[in-house]
């Protein structure tokens, strides 16, 4: 009996247990629905990009290469290009980043290294709040408050550093009769306001990177006799380097696309204006805000082309930023 049993066991070929789980109807509906949501979002997002590109094609075909070399913007006269507005956009972005990065770095270091736990939570909230303040409020502050105070600083800079090309102003700063309006509505003031707007995002990326600096290395630095600044310089900053660069790029991406505050402050001119202290400047977004209402169909296409150029620039900047940030994260700490 037992022998027979054993034989049958040996004779039967071993089949692996089927591991395939059957998916119930509710799960199937769930998967279909959520995949559908993903497809809809993908469709909307690609529609924006594809639509921008196709509509812009009209203008780009007519303008050809001169689209990137022409300064004026008269699409109905067939003479238009983004040389001036793109330069202006980059200038505003550069000023904003130069001002925002030290502020963000200082604030991020303060929050992650110096503040007490209670203060840390409060400050994180405050920085997040800064990111939520509407841009039109920043614009108001820039126009009605900062403008008046920054003009005197602009004047001082142009008086003593006017020999450096970007700080040059086409008026004699020592002449007391020079109208102060030469120094208002300038790229510098727009850049300062945008700097405050992009500071929060830059700061929070940096802070996150700093807080991931490993405790072992920190304590090691202290044990070797480092001061707090020595520890920051040797441990926190090297570990947060990816976050610093990534946050800076992310801020730059935001700064380039900022519209309403810049539009309120700058007086738009369509020529390359490299003197950041002097009144007048231009950005692509302000151009769109100014000209969309009066644009003909072809003018709309030209504006689309400008919008596309802006989108491409911010896209590249953002992609570099996010790859930097992910790289810094994967290197610094293992995610659970």
């Amino acid at each position, binding site marked *: 009996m037992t022998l027979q049993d054993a034989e049958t066991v040996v004779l039967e070929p071993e089949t692996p247990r089927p591991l395939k789980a059957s998916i119930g109807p509710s*799960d199937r509906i*769930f*998967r279909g*629905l*959520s*995949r559908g*949501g*993903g497809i*809809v*979002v*993908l469709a*909307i*997002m690609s529609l*924006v990009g594809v*639509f*921008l590109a196709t509509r812009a094609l009209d203008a780009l075909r007519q303008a050809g290469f001169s689209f990137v070399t022409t300064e004026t913007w008269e699409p109905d006269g067939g003479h238009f290009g983004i040389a001036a507005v793109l330069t202006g956009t980059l200038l505003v972005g550069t000023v904003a980043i130069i001002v925002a990065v030290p*502020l963000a*770095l*200082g604030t991020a*270091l*303060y*929050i992650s290294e*110096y503040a007490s736990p209670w203060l840390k939570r409060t*400050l994180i909230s*405050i*920085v*997040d*709040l*800064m990111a*939520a*303040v*509407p841009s*039109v*409020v*920043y614009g*108001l*502050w820039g*126009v009605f408050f900062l403008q008046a*105070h920054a003009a*005197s*600083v602009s004047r001082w800079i142009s008086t003593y550093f006017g020999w450096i090309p970007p700080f040059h102003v086409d008026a004699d700063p020592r002449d007391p009769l020079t109208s102060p309006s030469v120094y208002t509505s300038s790229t510098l003031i727009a850049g300062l306001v945008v700097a405050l707007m992009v500071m929060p995002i830059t700061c929070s990326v940096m802070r996150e990177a700093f807080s991931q600096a490993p405790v072992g290395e920190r304590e090691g630095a202290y044990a070797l006799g480092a*001061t*707090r*600044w020595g520890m920051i310089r040797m441990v926190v900053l090297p570990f947060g380097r990816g976050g610093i660069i990534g946050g800076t790029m992310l801020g730059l991406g935001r700064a380039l*696309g900022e*519209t*309403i505050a810049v*539009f*309120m402050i700058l007086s738009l001119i369509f020529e390359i204006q490299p003197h950041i202290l002097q009144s007048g400047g231009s950005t692509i*977004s302000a151009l769109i*805000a100014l000209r*969309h209402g009066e644009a003909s169909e072809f003018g709309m296409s030209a*504006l*689309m082309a400008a*919008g596309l150029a802006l*989108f491409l620039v*911010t896209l590249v*900047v*953002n992609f570099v930023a996010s790859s930097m940030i992910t790289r810094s994260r994967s290197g610094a700490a293992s995610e*659970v």
Partner: protein
Amino acid sequence: MTDTLAGPAKAHETTPPAAAVQEVRRDIGTFHQSDLLAILGAGAASLSATTLVFHHLAPFSGKVGFVIMAFLAFLAFYALLVSLEENGPAVRARLAAAIIHGLAFLVLLALAYMIGFTLVRGIQALRHLNFFTQDLRNAGPLEPLTVGGITHAVVGTLEMITIALAITIPLGLICAIFLSEIPGAFSRFVRTVVEAMTALPSIVAGLFIYATFILILGFELSGLAAALAISVMMLPIIIRAADVVLRLVPGSLREASQALGSGQWRTVWHVVLPTARSGLTTAVILGTARGIGETSPVLLTAGYTANMNVNPLKGPMVSLPLATFELVKSPQPTMIARGFGTAAVLLLLVLILFVVARIIGGRPPGSLSRRQEHRRVLASYRDLERFDRRSGVETASAPSLFVLDDRPQATPPRSGDHRSTLLRRRSR
């Protein structure tokens, strides 16, 4: 005290000096009196020196210049004072700390100044009650502030953001769930596209809706168009924030749920979403704050009107930020005052949303408030009762246990420790 300390020292005069050394507790605090004195001294010196330079020595003027120079002078004096008793690295550390504190303070100051400036200049208009009850149709440029208000902008903002949320919350959350729960090549691709779209400048989102909805489909400038433009802008922001929150839900919770036999849908509905609820709410509220404050898409798509318009499908509609923008363009002081009033209302709205988001959110996924814990304890009791009933065990003792625990908050289980409640009850 001195006697008792001196006593042993005298008694052991002949013993080696090591034993005689009286132990003094080492001060391990990081802040000493001399630090405070150095800060105060440097502050006083820098203020006096800067004042001297500004008023008597050099032809400088301006508040900004004064502050900058005073801070630089403070750094110099502080370094000098610290270097009297510390070595090089310590001086550098102190200087770095001073600079970092200064930068953080500057940021706080700028934010406080901005909010305060808007609110203070806005009070002029906010003082009049009609600002909240009328629209601007009768308010010509020269009318005093006792005429006209911004109800039309408030209504417009609320309608636009409601429509935008009705689109973005379902779509955004479903897409975020798709990204985090159904991984694969396709969802990676969607995530990449969504991340790319967060770079979309808001004015380009407005331009897109203007060109499609209005120019091609032939709709007029309306609240609906503005809401669509805001939706296009908000959608990637909400998806990304929600995706991050959902990915923070511990994988062990999902596995536990599936090990107990629930399918994917049940896992998402009963485990993932409740765990991430506070984070998801925060994501939506912060997205709302961004959407409410956005001007440029509305500028392109909503038109401008001074009249109340409650129909989002027809006719121009104005929102709070757009009203602010249009009002301060006027050279009339009353109009500018109205603009500041509008901005103050907008700012308060955003502040309220933000505080609400902080109250709801701000806790990591899975940790519960007291009330939620209470509810979970009660649910555990119900489950246990059900189990007992099913297995036919006599449940005569159950009521007394409920009485025993008439205030379950008093002994809440540690968060996430589902089992402990059951076990505790069993052991009783």
